[in-house]
């Protein structure tokens, strides 16, 4: 065989990690410390509790847990943290980045090749960063006949809509950006935006292949939205609520997939179609219509659409977990935090350290997040898998599947749910 990747060696693996750490430390020291000093030189320091907050004092406070932990806890209850970091955009983007990496490596293993290998030294872990830098540095070309405001707006709108979708997902008890009573309706509303944005971008490019791709996306999304909505009604019938947090909490003893497997299957297939993944990637069918509605996007505009696509993928997988797999519910994995540490402190050799306000996160939250991430990653894996196994489907077969088979199955699912409800087995006032 021609090129075979070098075999894995533990010594080289450790060496490469140490190499990376060395360069990070070197760069931080050479650039970070002068930068911090430069900033401190110009900033006027505030006076807190009658003391001038000098840099030394600030560092002392950072090192003192009795002062830093309450600040961190206070920050974590703010809306900014929720939207930007944990249940919101940052967490979703992290999972999306991991998804891209896993997708490339897994597909490579399936196809008997190596995948990203050299960038970042350890199994190509920095490949995504390299691709991102490349996309940022590329020139953005707008077609001469394009409707410029709409064409510019489309990628941004796409990411914004995907982020809005992410905001509705409850990750752990109480950890959700927008905890609204009509959460599921809001999800339907957000999903309804995607075809609009797609056809907007396709039409505004004023080019033939994006136009065909946009029309295909419109057909596909509209015809699969109906079975998608219908397949979720079974869960709503059994729980009697549209609030996603309450739906997740209702599955504390068993997930709904046990009673509604038909609905779960229909939802999974429609999810693949909504995400435009193989075998339903007709709007981006390469050999037929170049890149479909993405043809005219270049540089970071394309990068934004890709980011939006993977955020959407995470959000759909998370929705599947919340509705059918029990959300954050699961046996306790995280060991409970002993109370004595808060009251009496820890003896670390000669020093007794006090940590008032510990723990930062509750046991429930950490355990719930762990289970949620595990389940979501599992669902994402099954979303990625068809890409290596199936060819692309054709438009007429796609519409046939959507309108004839999936809608029928979704109704079967609703009847199963109604039957369970009226037999008094499940639902409000049921046996379980």
């Amino acid at each position, binding site marked *: *065989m021609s090129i075979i990747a070098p075999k894995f060696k533990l010594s080289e693996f450790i060496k490469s990690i140490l190499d990376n750490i060395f360069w990070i430390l070197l760069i931080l020291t050479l650039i970070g410390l002068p930068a911090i000093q430069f900033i401190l030189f110009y900033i006027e320091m505030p006076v807190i509790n009658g003391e001038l907050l000098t840099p030394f004092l600030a560092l002392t406070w950072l090192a003192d847990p009795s002062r830093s932990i309450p600040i961190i806890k206070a920050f974590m209850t703010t809306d900014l943290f929720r939207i930007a970091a944990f249940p919101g955009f940052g967490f979703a983007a992290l999972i999306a980045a991991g998804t891209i990496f896993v997708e490339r490596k897994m*597909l490579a293993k399936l*196809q008997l090749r190596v995948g990203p290998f050299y960038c970042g030294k350890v199994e190509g872990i920095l490949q995504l960063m390299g691709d991102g830098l490349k996309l940022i540095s590329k020139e953005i070309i707008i077609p001469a006949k394009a409707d410029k405001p709409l064409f510019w707006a489309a990628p941004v709108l796409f990411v914004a809509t995907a982020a809005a979708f992410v905001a509705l997902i409850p990750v752990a008890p109480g950890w959700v950006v927008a905890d609204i009573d009509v959460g599921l309706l809001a999800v339907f509303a957000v999903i309804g935006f995607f075809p609009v944005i797609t056809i907007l971008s396709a039409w505004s490019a004023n080019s033939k292949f994006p136009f065909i791709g946009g029309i295909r996306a419109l057909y596909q999304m509209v015809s699969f939205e109906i079975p998608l909505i219908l397949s979720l009604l079974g869960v709503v019938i059994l729980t009697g609520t549209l609030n996603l947090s309450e739906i997740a909490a209702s599955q504390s003893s068993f997930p709904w997939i046990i009673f509604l497997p038909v609905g779960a299957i229909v939802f999974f297939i429609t999810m693949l179609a909504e995400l435009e993944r193989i075998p339903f990637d007709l709007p981006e069918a390469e*050999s037929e219509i170049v890149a479909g509605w993405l043809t005219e996007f270049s540089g970071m505009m394309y990068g934004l659409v890709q980011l939006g696509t993977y955020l959407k993928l995470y959000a759909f997988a998370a929705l599947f977990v919340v509705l059918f797999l029990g959300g954050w519910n699961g046996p306790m994995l995280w060991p409970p935090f002993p109370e004595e540490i808060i009251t009496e402190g820890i003896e670390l050799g000669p020093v007794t350290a006090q940590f008032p306000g510990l723990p930062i996160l509750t046991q429930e939250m950490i355990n719930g997040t762990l289970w949620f991430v595990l389940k979501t990653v599992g669902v994402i894996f099954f979303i990625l898998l068809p890409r290596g196994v*199936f*060819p692309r*489907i054709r*438009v007429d077969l796609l519409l046939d599947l959507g309108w004839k088979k999936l809608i029928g199955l979704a109704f079967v699912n609703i009847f199963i749910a109604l039957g369970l409800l009226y037999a008094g087995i499940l639902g409000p006032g049921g046996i379980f």
Partner: protein
Amino acid sequence: MSSPTLPPGLAIQKADERIMTLNVGPQHPGSGHMRIVVQIDGDQIVACDPDPGYVHRGEEKMAEYRNYTLNVPHLERPVIHDSCNILYPYVLASEELLGLEIPERAKYIRVIASELNRCIYIQYWLAIYGIFLGHSTMFMWPAGDRELLIDLMEKMTGARVTHSYFIPGGIRNDLPANFEDVCLRQVNYFEKRIKEYADVFYENPILISRTANTGVLTRENAIRLGTTGSVLRASGIDYDVRKKEPYDVYDELDFETPVLKDGDSYARSRIPWLDMMESCRIIRDALQKMPKSGSVRVKLKPNPKGELGSVYKRIESGRGALGCYIVSDKKPEPYRVKLSVPSFRNLIAMPHLLIGEKLGNMPSIYWSLNYWPVEADR
């Protein structure tokens, strides 16, 4: 309203708002080195105009200025993946013109090289067929398994792709030591691998639903349009030059030609795959029957002169019957070399198959014709 005066030869075509004209190619991921002007009404193709000629290199004209041996390296350029097979008819015809008698061992080695090259070509074709249908695994697997045979060809000829292995008078060099064992092992493994494609590709329900009953070429049309090779055999006609007009030692070898009756895109895509298995059988048989030692080429005079006259020879290539017509006028260079290539014959069927089909069927029908744009342009 008066019509504007137009220069002679030009006319204004009335635009139909329902019909959209698409230029598929030459810069399109699904076109190859050619252009297909497709007119679509909604999702249906109403007119199709294949436009080859983007990679015309004048190989036939170039052959009139070089002697019989120097023509070898450039005549294989139209299909570098099938380079042994495209040289085969030229070499057979020029040997007859030069009056050469070929050693028995060289004939067997030629058959082995030709069959290995057929597999290499079909694997490449299959890889692109996979990616045209959006099946990326079917792109990577044949492209990777092809390396096995390319390594074999490298051992035989010293080059991975453009071998220049067949020359008038035999072959360029003898096989390396221990080649038979290595070849047998690689070919056996290769055959095991291609049988696995059935699970992931040929028996995939989505693939069958997409390609079955699309682009049907009936038996009568296949004959009328003059198609050849896998396209002809997928329409139910058992025609293989290796069987009908055996050249070199094909009449001594044991093999069959696969024939399917459906004539649709799916049958056309299966025939080359079945061909590969028959090729493995031929290689094993030839390795067994081959004389173990002996000369592999006839010594040629410098600048040999052909007899006055013309010769036409045909062989079965990876795409179909490939002919070469050489006219000689008693000079060191041939007076005329004409390559009759299968790709161009199969291209003629394309408008007949595409009109009335969905746009989504275009890549699968186009590539199932076993058409290589560079070979058609020569």
